[in-house]
């Protein structure tokens, strides 16, 4: 079987583009691309138009996808306009088209039995967690969510997303919303109170590492969507690697676009930025 055997490259139409807090919520008419999209998957979009000096695709986690509705298949994204490429995307008007490849990457594993799940998101990293919450809720899971950011305006928590969540807890570093502090400050109580059996997380690498420490301390399974700069999103450029243990325990530089973005937190060799972790397969002698 091919890698990314469900991926399609297509010119897709912007159906909607709305400002939500610090972010843009965008809906695209994507046809068949939606039918295989699962929570945790991402899409890669070319930015800047045909004469742009921006030559690399930008990866966006899928916020939600739907096969049904008046426009056929749709994929929704939450775009943070913090770079030139994402700013360009956030400025697209309804009916404009963009070149999209997707769905790409691994998805969050869904338990076969109803379990107590805790979803942890940082900033707009919360986006893929709402689609995941819907799936988990439909399976009869208890779904709690913790969303954190530096300030209130950077938390993405739309009303419709909250429907599938039992209890939502917010944390901000400046105390402008919810609990003052970080997501990891409130996680231990929630894990204990709700007898959490699995943690799902998405956000900056430093946050994922901290979440993983809490998960390991509490002996709870942890799936996280890792983040490393990508040039292609389809597995050919080898820039987005993260050191991870394979099934035999060997540390390899694995692509976050193919072997990830969703990985088991215990597989990741955390804190390895700017260095090759000791014992990595093929490390310089």
């Amino acid at each position, binding site marked *: 079987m091919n890698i990314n055997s469900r991926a399609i490259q297509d010119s897709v139409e912007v159906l909607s583009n709305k400002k939500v807090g610090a972010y843009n919520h965008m809906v695209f008419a994507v046809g068949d691309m939606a039918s295989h999209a699962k929570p945790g998957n991402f899409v890669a979009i070319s930015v800047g138009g045909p004469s742009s000096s*921006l030559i690399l695709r930008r990866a966006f986690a899928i916020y939600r996808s739907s096969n049904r509705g008046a426009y056929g298949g749709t994929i929704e994204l939450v775009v943070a306009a913090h770079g030139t490429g994402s700013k360009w995307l956030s400025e697209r008007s309804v009916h404009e088209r963009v070149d999209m490849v997707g769905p790409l990457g691994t998805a969050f594993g869904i338990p076969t039995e109803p379990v107590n799940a805790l979803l942890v998101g940082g900033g707009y990293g919360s986006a893929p967690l709402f689609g995941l919450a819907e799936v988990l809720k439909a399976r009869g899971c208890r779904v709690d969510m913790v969303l954190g950011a530096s300030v209130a305006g950077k938390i993405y928590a739309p009303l419709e997303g909250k429907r599938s969540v039992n209890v939502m807890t917010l944390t901000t570093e400046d105390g402008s919303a919810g609990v003052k502090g970080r997501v990891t400050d409130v996680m231990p109580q929630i894990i204990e109170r709700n007898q959490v059996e699995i943690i799902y997380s998405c956000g900056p690498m430093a946050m994922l590492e901290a979440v993983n420490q809490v998960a390991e301390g509490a002996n709870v399974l942890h799936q996280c969507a890792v983040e490393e700069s990508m040039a292609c999103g389809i597995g050919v450029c080898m820039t987005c*690697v993260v050191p991870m243990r394979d099934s035999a325990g060997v540390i390899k530089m694995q692509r976050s676009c193919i072997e990830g973005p969703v990985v088991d937190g215990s597989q990741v060799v955390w804190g390895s930025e700017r*260095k090759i972790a000791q014992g990595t397969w093929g490390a310089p002698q």
Partner: protein
Amino acid sequence: MSEFQAFDFRTKFGSRYFPSPIFTASGCAGSGKELSQFFDLDELGAVVTKSISVKPRSGRPTPRMAETPSGMLNSIGLQGPGIDQFLEIDIPWLQSNGARVIVSISGETVEEYASLARKLRGINSLHGIEVNISCPNVENRGLVFACDPVASRAVIEAVRRNISGDYPIIAKLSPDVTDIVSIANEVVAAGADGLALINTVLGMVIDVDAKRPKLAGITGGLSGPAIRPIAVRAIYQVHKALPQIPILGMGGVTNGRDALEMIFAGASGVSVGTATFGNPSAVIKVKRELLEGLRSRGFNSLSEAIGVAHV
């Protein structure tokens, strides 16, 4: 497909013919599997594999990438499984999926190149060997063989001795030299059948907020449209000096016009690399547009267009 039959799109490196002059560039096509989701690999003249080394290599730490105006810096550092696993898994998969395969090799010593060549000897189904003597992402810049005519010659001689005349040897050169023609002369004298021009250009980006180099590897190879004029210049200079030696041109080719430019400068084939990162089907787009571009300019074959910019 009939349009391709009417136009003679074939090209030749050494003893091998290729049905189309558009190839992938080394290190820009993964294992081939990743791109086969978007088009059939037999549409390509050949797949040039990532540069493979004797032993597994982890490559460099992250961050490995920085986007630059019309380009990107990478410092992958030749991550790969080593030649044995590569021969066991990657090559058979590519060939069973219709790809013509040019294997790119990279060593840290002349002896490593010789050893890689011995591993490849006798695999007659291969279409060529690209000898990458110019990767900028090695710990010691002194190891960039292609910056030194004597070292370049030694590597190609070692490969030639160990590979016999089975299939073409294409030497991949660096633009980071004072006189690329003198390096080209040396590797051709040593037995190279063709030249791959150009590898990435050594570059650097500083993160001004962190006040340190953006890449963990400090320096990286610049690729993309930003380096295309450098590639065209190198192809033009080398074709002028060695008109009988086929050149595989590369460096920022994104569309058919860019490929035409390289053909007119003297390339017999064109590799598409970084453009694939922005567009998974870039190689097919370049191939289609090159054919249209040649036809609309009155050519009936690729060969009659090679080097026409030389006056």
